[in-house]
């Protein structure tokens, strides 16, 4: 038997195996070396120093909780209680939350689990269970701190600023003002802001008010008042957010369909079996390549210079970029059609347009449609990014919220909405694909 296997063949096989083994080993090595190179090119060892873990902590706590600022202006003695320290979330005087009490110029803030902060004329005191009382008062040009020695790490004291961080809340004292931050779970004011009569009511109360309660505002029913107050919520701006989501989907829809409508006739001109003129075909092919090569980013910049910021610019940019892709894939689909059907139509004496309408379009529709629907889904995602550049839709709201670097709960809200929107578009396009293509 072995004699049958001629030596050259055996040698050849051995060589092939040796080469394959070499390739199989060298590919992981090359990848590893490349990753090692980027490890240093991206300065990952230095990342530990640059990373701001305190920022990460702020971000994570903001994602699921909110903080309320209790601030006293030390010059005027005025005390304000505001959610996230924003004017829109300020409690009106006389309607303080139950854990803040102001009597005779003494403000008491109950942070829970025995942590109590008191502001009075002399200064401020912070009672921490298991540690003692921290007393701060202004003295000369600085601040005087009286607290059990030695000072723990969570008290950060300098001449003009004292900061205390406890699990129950944070506290800071400067000459101009004293502030206490209390953290609570949930996104406060998500449904109703403080100026709404429905704020602070339990869901059951709200249902009973909506169904049978007396009208709080005699001019309108409770339900419409609730909807109105929710819709015009100044903190979370629900109406703006819904509008932005709609705008994003609109951009994706207009961009995708616009690209498909433009690319269909061009696809015919670039397909070998419909356009016998070689040079023209070549020109169209290179035109599609050019459009795709220029890239969405550059189109977006050029178009926003001409049309200004807004959703139409985004839709046009998407339409232009995708027209190149669609032109290419459509012409490929047209080249792969079954010629027999076209011949059948031709035998009835149909002209070119009729041949295309009855012989070609029914064949390629499923392919083209599934392509378009796939892009509709992926463009919903791109519309978020493009929206951030052209200034439209949810992408704009998201980048604005991130740039303020403090409204992280809004960032979390927008992120959730974007993910839900993309998933909804994903299932919608999947459902349409099934309905339209499989009949």
């Amino acid at each position, binding site marked *: 038997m072995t004699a049958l296997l001629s030596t050259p063949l055996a040698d050849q096989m051995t060589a092939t195996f040796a080469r394959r083994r070499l390739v199989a080993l060298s590919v992981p090595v090359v990848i590893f070396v490349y990753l090692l190179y*980027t490890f240093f090119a991206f300065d990952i060892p230095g990342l530990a120093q640059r990373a701001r873990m305190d920022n990460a902590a702020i971000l994570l706590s903001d994602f699921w909780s909110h903080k309320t600022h209790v601030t006293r202006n030390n010059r005027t003695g005025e005390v304000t209680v505001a959610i996230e320290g924003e004017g829109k979330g300020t409690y009106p005087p006389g309607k303080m939350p139950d854990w803040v009490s102001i009597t005779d110029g003494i403000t008491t803030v109950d942070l829970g689990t025995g942590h109590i902060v008191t502001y009075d004329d002399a200064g401020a005191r912070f009672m921490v269970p298991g540690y003692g009382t921290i007393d701060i008062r202004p003295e000369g040009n600085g601040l005087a701190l009286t607290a059990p020695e030695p000072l723990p790490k969570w008290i950060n004291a300098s001449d003009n600023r004292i900061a205390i961080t406890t699990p129950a809340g944070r506290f800071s004292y400067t000459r101009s003002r004293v502030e206490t931050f209390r953290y609570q779970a949930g996104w406060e004011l998500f449904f109703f802001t403080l100026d709404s009569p429905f704020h602070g009511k339990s869901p059951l109360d709200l249902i009973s008010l909506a169904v049978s309660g007396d009208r709080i505002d005699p001019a309108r029913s409770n339900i419409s008042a609730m909807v109105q107050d929710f819709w015009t919520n100044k903190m979370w701006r629900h109406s703006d957010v819904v509008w932005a989501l709609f705008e994003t989907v609109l951009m994706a829809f207009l961009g995708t369909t616009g690209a498909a409508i433009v690319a269909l006739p061009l696809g015919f001109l670039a397909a070998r079996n419909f356009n016998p003129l070689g040079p023209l075909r070549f020109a169209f092919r290179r035109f599609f390549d050019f459009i795709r090569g220029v*890239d969405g980013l550059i189109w977006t910049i050029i178009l926003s210079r001409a049309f200004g910021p807004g959703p*139409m610019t985004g839709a046009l940019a998407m339409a232009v970029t995708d027209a190149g892709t669609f032109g290419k894939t459509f012409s490929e689909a047209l080249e792969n059609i079954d010629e027999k059907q076209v011949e059948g139509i031709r035998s009835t004496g149909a002209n070119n347009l009729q041949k295309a309408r009855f012989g070609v379009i029914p064949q390629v529709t499923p392919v083209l449609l599934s392509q378009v629907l796939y892009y509709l889904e992926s463009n919903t995602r791109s519309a978020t990014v493009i929206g951030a550049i052209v200034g439209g839709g949810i992408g704009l709201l998201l980048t604005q919220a*991130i740039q303020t670097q403090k409204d992280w709960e809004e960032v979390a809200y927008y992120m959730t909405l974007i993910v839900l929107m*993309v998933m909804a578009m994903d299932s919608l396009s999947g459902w349409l694909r099934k309905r339209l293509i499989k009949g």
Partner: protein
Amino acid sequence: MADIAASASQNAAQSRDAYLDMVRRKRMYGGILLVIFVAFLASGWILADDRNAGGFWNGLPKLAEFPSEVISEAWEKRAVLPGRFIEFLPSLIETLNIAAVATLIGGMMAIVLSLLSTRGLARWPRLIPVFRRMMDAFRAIPEIVIALVLIYILGGGPVAAVVAIALHTSGALGKLFSEVAENADLKPVEGLTSVGASWGQKMWLGVIPQVAPNWISYGLLRFEINVRASAILGFVGEGGIGHDLKLAMQWGQGRYDQVVAIFLLLFLTIFLIDRVSDHYRNRLVKGDLT
């Protein structure tokens, strides 16, 4: 006999009428749907036009203004353009590196996720839905969201972009990989099971050699997409050639030579990657690996 013939022709006439009626109705529905669709489209464009800062018809004549302005300035400074190319080469390489590393890491994650969520191959068949939903979620998160949040924590640099793109890539590729793996021949896997191979060995020796050409082809396509994404992320966030482009654009007139240099670099790179990956994908899918 005559009776039967008459009723037959009557039947034929009836069914012809019914058929024509159906065709007419179908056409009418199709027409109505088309009209609704066109109306939808038109009102959508009008709405988008209204919300835009500049209108469509006002902007159309200005379309060529910016490119011609840029090109004329760059033409005056054409002597410095080669220097500009060299100046921006490092950031171009950074952009490419971001895309490549993200594709590699995302691809590796996608391999694991896809094998764990493919029927017949999964390590824990009960957890298939969990891994599928995980991929759906990764795919649904736009890169920009993660990138911007990570920039805040990591203080800039390319890592934020890499993580963002890699995460999205793992979801997108995972779905495609899993579709390929579903069609893999299970006989090699059975053979390996019979000799007592572990799950990892079965996948590595029985499945991956079968699906590798298709997977690599999808991976190349992803790399192309990721280069574009990495440039855009640079523009919106930080790092790479996108960031340089933003700086040059913000400066405006006087730095248009930089804008042109960046445009050209990006264009050539994307064009080249497009061509090369097209070529290799054709070869891979045709099975011509050697």
